[in-house]
């Protein structure tokens, strides 16, 4: 009998403790989680730098149009297509072909970043890519070259006492 009382009492106590514990919920559209900057790769060292694998950023002046990123994406998501882009002239890229990424297919594995030997494509911490139309998810070289908007209202996870919360 005391086993039951003890068990229920402890469970009730844990439940009532939760009433004074701060909630872990992140109220997302109002505030955003502070995440690490984007994933980068150093071809000289041969290792990546840890970071968030969000949408890509393309450095137009470094891209030579060598298609290595597109080849790396073959059989993974097949979302990188090399397109001729007149909007973004570049001295390094004589043929003027740049990657165009379809984020509707991209799995954000980052192997294209690993494949680039010219430091031309990195990933950013931009994860808000949703769109009501599928065609909007295809990012042209010019769109890829624009750095993501700086986010505001960033919060971190905090651990204090019994509660872990976003504040």
């Amino acid at each position, binding site marked *: 009998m005391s086993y039951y009382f003890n068990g229920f009492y402890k469970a009730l106590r844990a439940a009532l403790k939760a009433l004074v514990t701060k909630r872990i919920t992140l109220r997302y559209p109002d505030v955003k989680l502070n995440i690490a900057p984007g994933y980068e790769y150093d071809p000289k060292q041969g290792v990546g730098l840890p970071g968030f694998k969000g949408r890509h950023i393309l450095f137009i002046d470094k891209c030579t149009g060598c298609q290595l990123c597109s080849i790396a994406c073959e059989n993974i998501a097949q979302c990188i297509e090399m397109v001729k882009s007149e909007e973004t002239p570049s001295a390094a890229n004589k043929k003027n072909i740049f990657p165009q990424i379809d984020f509707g297919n991209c799995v*954000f594995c980052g*192997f294209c970043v690993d494949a680039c030997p010219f430091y031309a494509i990195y990933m950013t911490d931009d994860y808000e890519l949703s769109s009501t139309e599928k065609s909007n998810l295809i990012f042209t070289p010019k769109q890829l070259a624009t750095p993501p908007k700086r986010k505001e209202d960033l919060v971190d996870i905090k651990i204090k006492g019994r509660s*872990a919360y976003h504040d």
Partner: protein
Amino acid sequence: MINLSVEFDIKGKPSTLSLSIGPQHPGSGHFRLIITVDGDIITDIYPDPGYVHRGTEKMAEYRDYFQNIPHLERPIIIDSTGITLPFCLAIEKLMDKEAPPRAQYLRIIMAELNRIISHLYWLGIYGPFLGHTTMFMWPMGDRELFIDLAEMIGGQRVTFAYTIPGGVRNDMPENFKDKALKIFDHFERRLKEYDDIFINNPITDKRTKGIGVVKKADAIDIGLTGPNLRASNVKSDIRLDEPYCLYDELDIKNNIPVLSEGDCWARMMIRRIELHESMEIIKKALKRIPDGSVKLPFRGAVRVPEGKIFVRTEAARGVMGYYLISDGGKTPYRVKLSVPSFRSIPGMPIALKNVRIGDMPPIYWSFDYWPVEADK
């Protein structure tokens, strides 16, 4: 007008009712259990997997060894390190190379983090399967902490594509250790509250103890693995038996829980204890992790010499085995996955025999069956 397909037998045999639990049922995944009930007692069980079969093995034959990494983690995204790690080990063994020690430790850290993430997900489903709503929200909330940790290293929330042949993609960030230890401290406290509210709750005790028993002989015979086998009093863990990734340096002998009951409760407790022990293993690994490079200088498509190899590791659900045949080409000739979930299917008919319908969801989920993984 009303057809409940109740089979009334005039000869006085018990009348039975057949129920399709799944694939669209709140108590099943993409998986069907056709059960026959006599009154409230389940008399016959017929597992019917295959609703999410994608042909992973066939598709792997068309991808080269690097391209296979994001592909192969798809069957079980909540334990993605667990499923890609043996593949990388197999390639390294066929090439007769070994990843640098720092990479091995990072793999251990990632694999154990993934084990925690997977077990917390499991616990979060196990709660509502017993009707406990709070036990859904708490583990799912605390799982975010570990996903944040994994994201610091892997850059993604679930599918990291982190382990690659020859090491890992990147080093861990500097502030990882502090944050991890802080979160582990917090989660130890939370685990005690889990104990209070759910695991030691008298009703949970009554509902899980002594039901769905798989005896030791049966468990070995039908081929259960991992936590399910350890709950049936077999201390079998690949991390201990056939250490990979420098697990042998960590002295994890006492971090492998074994229980003798073999029932629903034991399978729950094993995972509950493993949540704690995995954190201990990560702490040990963080203490011992050496400096150095994290990757062998592989670039582009690797050529794997001709050969066959069977490699197994201990993923969150049990033994993850890969049988890899290479013909020296760019792509593997054959990739055979032996996944733990598939091996837990034959456990269900044994554990579910002669229990009540109400016990069906907790027993089913106590095997930690992941339909996508089993169907490959």
